């Protein structure tokens, strides 16, 4: 009997300790949630929550999006500064994958692989994924890059110290250091346009409507409809970045 009683009290003690420990742990961890999840999904579904869709099946690789983006946002014309660019993927019959992006696709593409060696080939436009758990936002030491309440990752040019941490943190390679301003620069989802009710420059000029800008909160909106009608994937889902750039017909070869 006594033996039993000791066991019982030990069990109770462990239970109480576990509960107290759990409470303590959540109490300590909770404030850091803001760091772990740099921003959360919007609580107000009546406001826009911007997302983006790209239909790889429709893209013809004309590079007008990359060109328009450079014009709209004064991106340096050198062939290694891009806010958006297009890649040509060629998967050969022997399984090797060839990826090229001469000047981001602005001057067009040439398929040098002979037709009978190609298993499949497609164009993949790339740009900032406007992640809602952005690695870049978490990496910024000064709060110069942030996620707006409407789900766009922006850079505060006057506050950025040009430390390049975010350039390294972005798994999609979507950031660069502006050579004149010496601060980081990236796709703003044409924030100056979408806040005035216009669409982004890349969506405006895309001749095949392969690019879709939309509000993920608008359940009848164009983007939500696109996502319902197609099997959409995001890039590098295993990184849990909360990407809001959805691709239709995304092949496993695309990195």
């Amino acid at each position: 009997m006594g033996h039993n009683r000791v066991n019982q009290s030990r069990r109770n003690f462990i239970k109480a300790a576990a509960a107290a420990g759990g409470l303590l742990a959540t109490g300590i961890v909770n404030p850091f949630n803001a760091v772990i999840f740099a921003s959360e999904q919007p609580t107000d579904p009546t406001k826009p929550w911007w997302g983006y869709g790209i239909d790889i099946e429709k893209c013809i690789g004309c590079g007008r999006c990359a060109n328009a983006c450079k014009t709209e946002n004064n991106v340096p014309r050198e062939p290694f500064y891009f806010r958006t660019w297009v890649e040509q993927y060629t998967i050969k019959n022997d399984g090797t994958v060839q990826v090229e992006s001469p000047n981001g696709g602005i001057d067009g593409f040439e398929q040098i692989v002979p037709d009978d060696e190609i298993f499949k080939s497609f164009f993949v436009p790339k740009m900032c994924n406007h992640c809602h758990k952005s690695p870049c936002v978490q990496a910024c030491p000064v709060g110069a890059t942030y996620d707006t309440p409407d789900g766009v990752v922006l850079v505060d040019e006057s506050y950025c110290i040009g430390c390049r941490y975010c350039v390294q943190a972005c798994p999609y390679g979507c950031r660069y250091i502006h050579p004149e301003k010496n601060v980081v620069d990236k796709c703003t989802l044409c924030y100056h346009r979408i806040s005035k009710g216009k669409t982004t420059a890349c969506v405006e000029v895309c001749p095949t409507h392969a690019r879709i800008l939309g509000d993920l909160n608008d359940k009848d909106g164009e983007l939500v409809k696109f996502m319902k009608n197609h099997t959409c994937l995001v890039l590098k889902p295993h990184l849990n970045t909360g990407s809001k750039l959805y691709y239709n017909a995304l092949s496993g070869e695309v990195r």
Partner: protein
Amino acid sequence: MPPQLKTLIPLFAIFIVLFLVGRHLVVPESFGEAGHYRFNSIVENAEKPLQYADKDACNECHEDYVMEMESDMHAGLSCETCHGPGFAHYEEPDSSRLLVPDQREFCGLCHQRNFNREKKLAQIDLKEHYPEKKCIECHNPHLPWDITE
């Protein structure tokens, strides 16, 4: 009150005031209003100048061209895809003219034969398809299947 506190309390008070003054000077206005960033930066980003207008803007004056284009294969294309950014022209029509690209290479950006897009749109080989002529000499770019020669 113990005598130690009498010296320590003013000292601490000075430190706290100094910290608050320093923080006020260092932390920019509107920082932290919505998160760990300067809230005014959102406004600054939203105020950048536009370069591209949009098709609705073109349609305000050039409805004839827009209607013409909607009747052929180039329906759905934005004017600025070929003619370039037009917001300055939209604001002051006389101040700037838009591009009228006439090089074969420009049309080739979409229509040069490429394995990737062969089944999606009309494809030609720029080297073989009337190499001595400009595309727009035969094809009206607004009505590409309206061939003049």
